[in-house]
């Protein structure tokens, strides 16, 4: 049996890995040059506790369940998570009332450990938040991770377990026979399939339409972010939310996994024809700046490292749409993965494979005896003891050549990232954190370009930042 997953974001990647536990042929088709580069790449990187989602919603079903799965998943796949906990802060009586509602909702959603904290408790744990705070909802299970790393780790592990990965391949059509999809047509190839799982993120509605299945229309909701230097990473130790409104969870202040401080996102609904619009705007960035100062006064904006925007797929129902199609019997939609899609993803992957495929569609999948659930991340030499590092350098001198000074990434790590599939500057960046630091590649980008050139046996003019036409350098200036 051949099962194809379309879209290698965090949801598609985890579904693909889940499928690799069974004795089936698994295809993962992704139009970008790397995995995790769509919706997954730019969001708040939060493992939500699960008190936000309306009782009875599909979101509520998967959020706290997914959250609790991350502990084991991060151990198996060797990516970092930090259970920082989160606060929702209330500054007036109206907001306090909302906190009480959230607490009740969270308890119904099986969110563990929720507590209401008074001002003094909050300020003792988070001394930098606005002292006018009146009350806070504390959620200890909330945490942070690197979303793209979840996708990368899942795909690496799936590849070890037989996954066939097709990058830079865009699905353009489907061949149908007797109300079933029999072939996926991409811009490069045709893939015969028995089952199709649509996890195409922002574009899942268009794919579903093309396949002739039910769908919910998607529009992008843009979130703009500001990332600050590691020097400010300890400004807060947990995720600081404002009291949510009907529309969104608001603009937050949170630490990042690698020690920076992240501010954002805005929430701007865009029409459905702007699914490629990842531009930041002056209004958006100003909104972020203005808003976060109410939560955490005194943030030093001279320490900005970068600004960026991400898009979340939003539907009119404001809920996940996860179901087998009634009209096309071998097609499963996993779409409208708005927040908390990242958190819910592991639970969704399990649900899709165990409940939808096996129970609802009645597929007979047998578990592989030799599935290896473990994947090792790229070794970070700077985290080793001096003795261990010394030994590693003796075996491999590249482990002692520091390339990225800001995030202390060695040449050995960059070579390993390339060995594991990085083909672009961003591919190296997202796998190693090189170029992610305060100098933003000022010292290391040209060196990484040369390492890519050497390792891939390609001329530098063929190496791109992130997409086929995002070239870095042209020909030579002197022969």
């Amino acid at each position, binding site marked *: 049996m051949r099962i194809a997953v379309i879209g290698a974001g965090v949801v598609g990647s985890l579904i693909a890995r889940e499928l690799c536990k069974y004795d089936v042929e698994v295809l993962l088709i992704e139009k970008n040059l790397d995995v995790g580069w769509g919706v997954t790449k730019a969001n708040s990187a939060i493992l939500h506790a699960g008190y936000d989602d309306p009782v009875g919603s599909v979101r509520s079903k998967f959020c706290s369940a997914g959250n609790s799965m991350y502990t084991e998943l991060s151990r198996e796949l060797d990516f970092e998570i930090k259970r920082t906990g989160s606060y929702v802060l209330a500054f007036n009586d109206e907001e306090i009332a909302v906190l009480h509602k959230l607490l009740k909702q969270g308890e119904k959603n099986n969110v563990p450990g929720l507590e209401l904290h008074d001002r003094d408790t909050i300020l003792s744990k988070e001394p930098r938040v606005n002292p006018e705070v009146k009350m806070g909802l504390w959620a200890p299970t909330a945490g942070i991770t690197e979303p793209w790393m979840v996708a990368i780790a899942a795909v690496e592990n799936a590849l070890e377990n037989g996954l066939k990965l097709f990058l830079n391949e865009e699905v353009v059509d489907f061949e149908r026979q007797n109300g079933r999809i029999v072939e996926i047509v991409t811009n490069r190839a045709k893939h015969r399939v028995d089952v199709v799982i649509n996890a195409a993120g922002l574009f899942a509605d268009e794919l579903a339409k093309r396949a002739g299945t039910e769908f919910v229309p998607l529009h992008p909701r843009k979130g703009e972010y500001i990332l600050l230097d590691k*020097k400010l990473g300890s400004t807060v130790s947990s995720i600081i939310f404002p009291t949510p409104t009907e529309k969104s969870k608001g603009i937050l202040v949170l630490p990042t996994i690698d020690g920076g401080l992240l501010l954002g996102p805005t929430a701007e609904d865009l029409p459905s024809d702007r699914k490629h619009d990842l*531009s930041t705007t002056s209004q958006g960035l100003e909104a972020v700046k203005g808003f976060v100062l109410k939560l955490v006064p005194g943030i030093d904006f001279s320490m900005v490292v*970068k600004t960026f925007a991400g898009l979340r797929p939003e539907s009119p129902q404001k809920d996940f749409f996860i179901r087998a199609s009634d009209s096309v019997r071998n097609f499963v939609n996993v779409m409208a993965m708005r927040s908390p899609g990242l958190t819910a993803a592991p639970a969704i992957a399990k649900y899709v494979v165990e409940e939808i495929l096996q129970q609802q569609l009645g597929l007979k999948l047998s578990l592989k005896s030799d599935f290896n659930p473990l994947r090792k991340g790229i070794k970070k030499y700077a985290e080793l003891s001096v003795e261990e*590092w*010394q030994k590693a350098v003796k075996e491999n001198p590249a482990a*002692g050549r520091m390339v990225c000074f800001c995030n*202390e990434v060695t040449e050995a790590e960059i070579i390993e990232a390339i060995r594991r599939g990085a083909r672009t500057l961003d591919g190296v960046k997202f796998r190693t954190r090189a170029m992610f630091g305060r100098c933003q590649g000022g010292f290391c980008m*040209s060196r990484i370009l040369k390492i890519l050139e050497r390792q891939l046996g390609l001329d530098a003019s063929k190496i791109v930042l992130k997409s086929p036409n995002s070239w870095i350098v042209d*020909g030579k200036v002197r022969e």
Partner: protein
Amino acid sequence: MKTDVLVIGAGAAGMAAAIAAAKNGLKVIVAERDEVTGGILNQCIHNGFGLHYFKEELTGPEYAERFRERLSEYTDAIQVLTDCHVLKLNRDKKALLVSPRGVFELETKVVIYAAGARERPFGSLMIPGDRPSGIFTAGVAQRLMNIDNRKIGNRALIVGSGDIGMIMARRLTLEGTEVVGVVERLPYPGGLLRNVIQCLKDFDIPLYLSSTVVEVRGKERLEEVVVANVDEHFKPIPGTEKIFKVDTLVLSVGLIPQVEMLDGLVSLDARTRGIACSSTGQSSCEWIFAAGNCTAIFDLVDYVTREGERAGEYASRYVVGERFTRNVPIVPGENVMLTFPNSYSDVDDLTLYVRCRKPMEKAVLKVGSFERVFEDLIPSEMIVVRVPKQKLMGLDRIEVTLAEV
């Protein structure tokens, strides 16, 4: 390993400091993270270096070569470790070094920190728009072109009319990239007049003053840059937008002293954002001396060399037991943007670097009881002046002022 002096960084300041310490008979180890000594000089293939120090005009690599030769005259005293990154410096004067040859600890008596500066990256400017390829800092562009022999694009716009920005405009033109303009948010050029003429006028490259980039566009490679005029508070004026169709944007918008390795060990100066130093080069941690662009951003490499020599000299005297006690704060006053050093230790006359706040035709510099008239002052050009020790006697605070006349 043990040494008397650990010099961190083998750029202009580090090389000069190492030589000064070796001349004083000390054992020196220089740790340089790049594969060669010389620092940023190696990628600056234009001329104009060394006019003060060597009294002749050299290119960056030539200037570096002269010091490399001098270093090699002291092979008994100086050991240069290239491709060697100082990972950590501890309070107990031990450093952890990492290189392809090994990871090892080094015990020293004194450190001369000469790590230079980094460029302000595009991301820190919070410019709205897309995030395409084709946006380079001047230093990265310079390295790619001058060292790696790569063409960075076909049509470029440059932001920042400091000397580096203007020199890059010329270099790109000479290397076959069309430069459509240089954008400067100040109402006057940020660099030397000679560069305005030799780098822009001579090549018909337009300079857009009081202008700033308000948006970059391009889904993959850069396609368009939107530039607008700014008011006196540097706020873009709506309706003045101009679109440049370019595939390359080169940013030359300032340098930031690199200080992170010394976090928690030394004090910084709020204005220079560099390591706060006494006139001896000594930081707030008495066994750490610092020199060059990690203390303040200097106009000329010649100054950086002199500061390196000074730090090397006083660090050596510190190693053999001399202590520099009296440290009088030096503070910028009227019309002064910044001063360096940050305090005065009365072992010698004071070499003072001053940057004015605005262009002035004529002004009197006052430092203690010292006065001197300067003409044609601009913020981009540092004033360097030697103030005799006697003029600073008995002060417990040295204010530096520029009174317009």
